[in-house]
């Protein structure tokens, strides 16, 4: 009795933004011969790798129904901690990388405990954590930046493997990681269960709260990874570098189809991220000044989000009975 037209099923599955992205790519390709070249694409992807990595973490939290607003601050703090370990304590680079990842994961753990154990609404818990993270990042070096890293540090932001920039490789790994996690592991099933019908997990005897915490820890880990890449690329670590990234990551995830809890996918999130990246790139290329970009992107994203929500509400019919 699955009498749903294949057409509509396809439309429901693919987020609206994918079509707009396709359109944008076509328009840009037509208007500029340089757009669809390997060099330019790799450039765009490299600059957008931060957003992709962050989104791959945020999507997992969003599917559980949480609003993750801390990744900007956590990323910044992870970068600063890594820089501090490098410059102040002279630790070897691999150890510093681990510091970044640990800091990220730890803040994810904090977020998870706030939300899952203490019952604090996710947007407050993550906002508060972001404030704390930015606060520590600003305070830890009296507001100054770290710089003067050894040359090898630049590998993660500027190096390349087989002529693919390292950030792009890392974002590909992040994508694959989330894709496999969400689709092919037990944990992935539980993430969707928490978002879609938390009761069902409890009835099956599983500790839902711990899986929620793990989701936030994963997002924190990704934020740590992003911190490594951004610090490596800039070859400095600034206390405000991540400012606003949580919004773009959130927008990417929502545009990619994950607004309601229990829905969304890594593929959707990366499409959403690519949409934002291509949009930014397009604005750059057409010479829009930075401040105006910021003025446009915010409202544009909100508008797209509201639009996609309304579209999704309209298309959705009695597809899931329940209460």
């Amino acid at each position, binding site marked *: 009795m699955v009498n749903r037209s294949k057409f509509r099923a396809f439309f429901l599955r693919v987020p609206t933004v994918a079509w707009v992205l396709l359109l944008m790519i076509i328009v840009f390709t037509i208007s500029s011969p340089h757009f669809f070249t390997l060099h330019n694409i790799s450039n765009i992807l490299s600059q957008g790798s931060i957003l992709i990595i962050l989104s791959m973490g945020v999507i997992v939290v969003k599917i559980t129904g949480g609003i993750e*607003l801390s990744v900007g601050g956590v990323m910044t703090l992870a970068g600063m901690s890594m820089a501090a370990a490098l410059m102040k304590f002279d630790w070897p680079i691999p150890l510093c990388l681990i510091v970044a990842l640990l800091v990220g994961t730890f803040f994810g753990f904090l977020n998870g405990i706030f939300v899952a154990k203490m019952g604090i609404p996710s947007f407050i818990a993550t906002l508060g954590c972001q404030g704390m993270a930015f*606060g520590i990042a*600003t305070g830890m070096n009296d507001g100054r930046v770290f710089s003067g890293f050894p040359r090898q540090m630049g590998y993660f932001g500027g190096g390349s493997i087989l002529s693919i920039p390292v950030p792009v490789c890392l974002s590909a790994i992040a994508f694959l990681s989330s894709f496999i996690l969400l689709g092919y592991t037990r944990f992935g099933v539980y993430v969707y269960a928490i978002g879609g019908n938390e009761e069902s997990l409890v009835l099956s005897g599983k500790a839902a709260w711990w899986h929620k915490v793990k989701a936030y820890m994963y997002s924190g880990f990704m934020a740590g990874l992003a911190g490594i890449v951004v610090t490596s690329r800039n070859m400095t670590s600034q206390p405000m570098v991540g400012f606003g990234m949580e919004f773009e990551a959130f927008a990417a995830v929502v545009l990619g189809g994950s607004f309601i809890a229990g829905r969304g996918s890594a593929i959707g999130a990366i499409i959403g991220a690519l949409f934002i990246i291509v949009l930014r790139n397009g604005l750059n290329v057409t010479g829009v000044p930075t401040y105006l970009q910021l003025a446009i992107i915010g409202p544009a994203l909100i508008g797209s989000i*509201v639009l996609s929500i309304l579209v999704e509400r309209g298309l959705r019919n009695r597809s899931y009975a329940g209460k």
Partner: protein
Amino acid sequence: MPVNNQPSANSKRYILSLIRVCREFDRARVRQIAFRFFRVLGLLLLCAIITVSNRNFIRLANLINILRQASAQIIISIGMTVVLLTGGIDLSVGSVMTVGSAVSGFFLTQTGLPWPIALLAALGAGTALGLIGGILVAKVKLPPPIATYGMLWIGKGVSFGIMGSTPFFGFCNEFRYLGKGYLFGIPFPIWIMAVLVTITFLFLKYTTMGRSVYATGANQFAAKASGIRVDRVLISAYAISGFLAALGGVILCARLNAVDQDIGAPFLLPAIAGPVMGGTSMEGGQGGVGSSVIGALIMIVLTNGMNLLGISSLWQQFVIGLVVVLAVWLDVAIKKRS
């Protein structure tokens, strides 16, 4: 004479009646009063601790100064209170503050128009942003955190667009009076704040519209079924918050005589932590201006205390983030128990 029995029988009767009195005494109301009391006590305790480490704190000039600096924060908290009472939250207040500053800065320095126009434009812009947020919540039915988070970024977009790459500065004196002037020896911002606190208090407690705000937050379904126009209440609440946030921004830039892009951002978290700590619950329907002001004062005293104790402002952000989380946790935990 049964000397042994009489005293014990009497005391037994006495104890029994005492127990009866205690049981009849409404535990819920006792709890309510106790919490209020503890918050005020907490505030006084905090002031005492700070005074011990720095006697300058308790001097009148310092207290007035604190209040003046805090007036913008308190004004925003009033708006946040109204929104919290409806069961929602306004994450855009910091950003709308910036818009208020940016718009007034623009009108003051880029156009030849008189300063009242700048003021009106700023307030209008804030109210408009609040209205949009309210519509998103009431009509589009977006969850308040998401709707107002979106407005936060729209607000940023607006202020970026207005300011461009250069900040505004150098405003006319009449306008600056709003932030720096004195009236009968008391700074003007404090007057504005006091008036607004009073008006809002009376509005919430003694008008039918104010009562609808509480009803909407206490139970939106029952409010609707009791004939309250819930949509209007919600939209108005967010519009008020936007208006007050813009007003806060006006006072801020009037005092600083300049505007830059992030002027309002640090005001968001304290605007949440203050009212929630003071007793205006995120659930809705509980608390009010009085509670929020107490909570806001706690936040302000805390910040000022940190300054006086020499804690760098860089770490203060950490403390505030932590306080927000703790305040909300307290609120959630208390509500869960009852």
